[in-house]
Every structure is written in C-alpha cells, then in structure tokens.
C-alpha cells in the first residue's frame, strides 16, 4: 500500500540515561513554565512584604507598654506576613504533584522516569531552591521595610543584633520546609483537596486541640507542634513555651521528612 511518507525525523543516537540531576532540571522547567505557579509565588512574596509594612505601621501607632517593651520582637513583627505566605507556598507545593495526577501528566512523568522516586526528589529540590531563591530576598525586604517603618516609633532593630540575621534567613528556610510539607502531602494523598485540607489541618489544628488541655500539659507540648516548632526560627525573643530556634526548625523538618518518606514509600508501590 502506498501512502504519503511521514515527515522525516532524523535518528537520535545520543546518551539518554536518566539521572537525578537531569530530573531536577526537568522539574525546574515544569515549575517555571506553568504561569499560574510563578504568579502564586510572586503573590506570596508581595503578601509577605506588604503585610510587614501593614503590621509594622499598626505597631507604631499602638506601641508596646513599658512593661511589655522587653518582650517586643521587632524582627517577628516584620516577618508576621510569613504566616500568610506559608499557606500559598504549601498549597503550591501540593499542586506540583496533585496537578499532575489531575491532568494525567503523572503518567508521562513516570513513563519517562520509571523508578519514580527521582521525580519526587526532583520536585522537592527544584521547589525548595525556587522558594529560597525568591524568598530569601523577600523576607529580607519584609524585614527592611518593617524596620524602616518601626524606626519612626524607635522600635526597630538591625540585622547585626544577635539572632536577627538567623531569624530573617530562617523565615525563608521555614517557607521552603512548608513547601516540602505541601509537596509530601500532595504525593501522599494525590488529590488537591485532600492535600490542602491535610496541610491546613497540620498547621492549625494541633494548636487548637492543645488549647483544650490543662496549661501544665499544653505548655510542654505546644513547642513541639508543627507550626510553632517551625516558626520558632523566626523569633529573636521567643516566648517561654517555644523550642530554641534551630531545635524547633529541626522538629518541623522531621515532620516534613516523615511525610516525604511516607509519600516516597507509597509512590513506589501505587498504580497510577
């Protein structure tokens, strides 16, 4: 049978082994080429800087009383937008993989990388780097904007003060860890609604539940809850129920690592 010949496609003899570095590059391309993810990250950055300005302004008009001035944490005030920004970053982390399940792209991904786990690690590394690249400057900007507003009430601090630089950098680290938690929940639960529900539940529900306990118990437990543990790295003058900054961040990272491990275990086994 004679048919018109298909357009000629040259042979491609090149090396085509799948490596983790190649998969990271691929995942980076995926991340930056869906316009909605880029816009949500930018929106989160704007939110963090904008909220720093807003809340610092509020604190200038309502300065702390003399008794409370020792506990006033100007760094934490300027980083308070992280509480909002973390939600956008966590949700986007979940969407990076639940979006693939929803569109069927996950089959393309796993057919190209049949060992599967490099896809999860590729997303994790690519996304964590993207969050750090964007949010180290964003938290720094939030800090500087916040301090310049607080300075009009003589409430400001500087990066040179003990713990301040750690808190600002730690804010970006915390965001990256929340992004990974969202990604892990997305990979584990595979549905956007379930992953977002679980993320918000993990970040908010434990504090509410612990609030029902007698304070002699809750004071001991509170610091170990995911969100309070993670956010401890952003405070310069921690309240007594908090864990020390790096220990708190370590605890939060441990929760994230547990979720990612469960996700990896399930990813290897499940049919797509």
């Amino acid at each position: 049978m004679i048919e018109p010949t298909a357009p000629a496609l040259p042979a491609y003899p090149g090396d085509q082994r799948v490596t983790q570095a190649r998969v990271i590059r691929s995942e980076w391309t995926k991340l930056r080429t869906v316009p909605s993810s880029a816009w949500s990250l930018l929106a989160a950055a704007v939110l963090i800087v904008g909220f720093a300005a807003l809340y610092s302004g509020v604190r200038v008009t309502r300065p702390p009383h003399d008794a409370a001035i020792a506990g006033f944490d100007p760094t934490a005030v300027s980083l308070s937008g992280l509480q909002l920004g973390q939600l956008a970053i966590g949700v986007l982390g979940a969407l990076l993989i639940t979006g693939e399940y929803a569109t069927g792209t996950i089959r393309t991904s796993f057919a190209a990388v049949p060992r599967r786990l490099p896809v999860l690690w590729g997303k994790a590394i690519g996304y964590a780097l993207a969050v750090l690249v964007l949010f180290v400057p964003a938290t720094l900007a939030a800090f500087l904007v916040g301090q310049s507003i607080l300075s009009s009430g003589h409430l400001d601090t500087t990066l040179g003060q003990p713990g301040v630089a750690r808190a600002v950098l730690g804010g970006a680290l915390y965001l990256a860890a929340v992004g990974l938690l969202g990604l892990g929940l997305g990979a584990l639960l595979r549905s956007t609604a379930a992953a977002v529900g679980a993320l918000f539940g993990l970040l908010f529900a434990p504090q509410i539940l612990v609030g029902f306990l007698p304070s002699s118990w809750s004071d001991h437990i509170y610091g170990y809850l995911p969100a309070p543990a993670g956010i401890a790295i952003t405070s310069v003058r921690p309240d007594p129920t908090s864990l020390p900054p790096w220990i708190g961040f370590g605890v939060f990272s441990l929760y994230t690592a547990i979720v990612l491990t469960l996700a990896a275990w399930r990813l290897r086994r499940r049919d797509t």
Partner: protein
Amino acid sequence: MIEANRLTKCYGDKLAVDDLSFTVRPGVVTGFLGPNGAGKSTTMRMILGLDAPTSGSVTVNGRPYQRHAAPLREVGALLEARSVHPGRSAYHHLLALAQTSGIPRSRVDEVIDAVGLRQVARRRAGGFSLGMGQRLGIAAALLGDPHTVILDEPVNGLDTEGIRWIRSLLQGLAAQGKTVFVSSHLMNEMALTAQHLIVIGRGRLIADTGVEEFIAGAERDAVRVRSTDPDALAGLLRSHAAEVSRDQDGALTVSGLSVDQVGRAAGAAGITLLELTARQASLEEAFIDMTSDAVEFRAPITAPAKG
C-alpha cells in the same frame, strides 16, 4: 520486542487482564484490538510499569521497563492524548520530558517539526484540539528515537488526513525495524495499518495472528438473490447444500455457493432472477462476532455496522 507472560491484573474483584501471553515483534506494526473495556489500556500501562501486574510479567527488550537505564530510548508511549498540563506550552511539555533523559532542545524542535506543530508549539496546550493533542502525544513518543513505540488509540478524534498520517508514520517506524504496538477498537483501521493482530476481549486473548490470516478466516461471503419465486428458489438452493435465509424484502441470503453456482442452478431450473449480488461480510462484523461473547457492556445494535 514486548513479551507478556501470563499477565493478569485485578482491580478489587474485577479481572481487567486475564492470563494474557503474547509477543510483539520488531519490524511490523502490531495492532492491539479489542472492544472498549477489554483491557488494552491496562495492558499498556503494565508494559510501562505504571500499573503493577497482579501476577505474571511483561518485559521490553528482555527486561522489565523499570530496569532500563535509558527508558525513553527503549519505549516511546502515547497513553492518553490529554496527559499534558493545560497551562504549559507544547514546547515546554516536550522540553521537560526531554530533560529527564538529557535530550537537547534541538531534538525537541525536530519532533515538533515532524508532527507538524511548529506553528502552535509555544501556545498553551490547554487550547489544543483533540487532533493537535494527539500529535503532541506522538511527538513525545518519538522524542527519544525509541526502539519500541506504544500508542493507545492514536487515531481517536483525528480527521481523515490525520489518520492517513499516523498510518504512514507507523509503517515507516516499523520499516526502520522498530517494534510498533498500536491499540484500537476499530477493526477496519487496524486492517489497513497493521501486519499482525493481537485481539483481546474481557482481558483474555482471542487471537494472535497475521492480518491476512485474520481476514481470510473472517470472510464469510454470501450471495444475495431475489427472484419471482423465492420459495422454489430456496428449496432448490437447499438441495445444493447451501444455507438460505430470507430477508425482509423477500430476497434470499445464500451462503455456501458462489454467485456463478446460484445463477446456473436457477437457470437450469427455469427460475427468473431479478437480482444476484455477492455480499462480502465486513471485517468489522467479523470482529464484532468474534468478540461479542467477550464484550462486557453491550448496547443493543440499532444501526448496521459500516462496511
């Protein structure tokens, strides 16, 4: 080369693929034929390691697909046309896929040109027509210049030109010595495209045969004859050991005798014929017959199958 050995897949208590063994050889187009829901897509997902078999095994070029270090070099697959993020452009979809295996941008451009998507490659894939989506999926399948090409229902939603394009593309790939495995629920399309057929129904193997043999076995030629005296003619033909049935318009459908034999017999008996035609059973009818026991959800057939 794809080798399935007693491949079985259950979803809960539902048996999707049932003890399926077959070999898909290089150098020819192998059609994977079965009604919708017969287990074709499940089998293809198991070949690619996307679904794990409940029992049995399947290998690509001698080993399970997951064990290949360069998977895109081994198999290029089109599974569903819409396996693309709607917000991403066709170019970036292919680029991300290429980067997993270190395939350069120049190769991405080559496959885009080969499937004729250059004009729309930078547009969001969400706005693609079904046909453009299929071409994008085929571009992805060809990216790594794979030894084996697996396409699930590639002609779905394509226009005539697109179908002809795919047909010649597949035959070209087979001519290069590649293994080409294409599923379809359309017998006629496969008869034109494939040289070998694997037919399944309800997850079971029904036939594993060359297209020529399949067609030869499927043809049940019949003769349609109309006369002024159908009763006498029917009796006469039955005495010649033919099977005769009566159509609604009074014509007879005769099998077991050729047109010539029917004409001569009628002439010798002095029966006037008004019409005498050879009627070839369509492949589609043969296929439906063959798989009808195996079709799970069968709608009553209200229109005759197109021949």
